[in-house]
C-alpha cells in the first residue's frame, strides 16, 4: 500500500502547526507562504516562499538571515521527520517582489 505522507493525510494539523510559526522582527521576514506539492522527482514536499526586508536580504547578511529562518522552520515544524515532506525554501527581497509581483510569494 502506498504510504501517504502525514503532511498530505493531515493537512489541517499541518496548517495548525504552520499557523503557530511566528517570526519576530529580527528574522527580517516581511511575508511568507507555503505550498504542498510534489517536487521534480515526484516526492511530496513543502515549499516556503519567503519575502525578506531589503535589509535582511542584503548580500552581506543574507547567509545568516536565511540560515536562521531555515533552522527556525525546521526546528519548529520538522517537515521531513514529522510530516514526510521535503522542505524547499525560496527567498526574495521586498523590492524584488514589488517588481516581479510573483503570486506564489503572496
Amino acid at each position: 500500500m502506498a504510504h501517504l505522507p502525514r503532511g498530505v493525510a493531515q493537512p489541517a494539523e499541518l496548517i495548525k502547526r504552520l499557523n503557530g510559526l511566528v517570526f519576530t522582527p529580527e528574522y527580517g521576514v516581511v511575508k511568507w507562504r507555503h505550498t504542498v506539492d510534489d517536487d521534480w522527482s515526484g516526492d511530496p514536499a513543502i515549499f516556503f516562499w519567503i519575502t525578506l526586508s531589503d535589509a535582511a536580504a542584503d548580500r552581506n547578511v543574507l547567509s545568516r538571515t536565511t540560515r536562521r529562518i531555515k533552522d527556525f522552520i525546521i526546528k519548529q515544524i520538522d517537515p521531513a521527520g514529522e510530516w514526510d515532506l521535503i522542505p524547499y525554501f525560496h527567498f526574495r527581497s521586498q523590492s524584488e517582489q514589488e517588481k516581479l509581483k510573483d503570486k506564489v510569494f503572496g
Partner: protein
Amino acid sequence: MAYHDDLLRHAVFLSELDLPEAPKQVDLRRAVSAAYYALFHLLTVEAAQNWRRERQRSRFARMFDHGRMKTCSSKVASRPLPRDPAENAPATLLKLVAESFVNLQHARHTADYDNAYAWSRTDVWDLILDAEDAIKAWMGIRETTMAQDYLIDGRSITIRVVHQILCTLRSVNSSGFIFSCSRRRQSSFT
C-alpha cells in the same frame, strides 16, 4: 583551481551580471545550474577518488545518477542526528551537505525546466551560499566513515554503479579485472 570552485565562481559571475540593474533570467537560471553542478561534481569526483585506477576515475564519476543521489541525500537529511557527541558534529555537517544537495537539485530542475518561475538575485545568492556552505562542510568531513558511506550509499548507488562498472570494464577488457579499492575504504563498495 578545482572544477567545483570554477563552477561556483561562474555562478557568482552570472548572478552579478547587469548589477545594479535587474538581472536577466537566463543568467540567473544558468547560475543556479552552475551552483548545483559545483556540489554534484565535487561529490562524484570525491567518490571516484576511491577508485584505485586513476585513468578510470572520470568514467567512474560519470556513472552517478542524479535521482539516486537525491534519494540517498533525502534519507540522510531526514535522519535524526546521533546523540553521541563524537558522531554528532560530522553528522550535522553531512546533513547540511545532504539538505543542500536536495535543495540545489530541485532548484536546478526549476531553473532548467520551469520558465514560468521568475528568479530573483536573492533566491540565487541564497542557493550559491548553500552550495558554498555544503562544500565547506564536506571538506571538514570528507575522510569520515559516514561521509564515505554517503558517497557510496550501500543500497541504492552501489549496486547500480558496481553493475555498470562491471559491464563497462568487462566490455573494455575481456580478460577481466580485479575489483579493488584501497583497504581503508573497501567497506564502501560492499
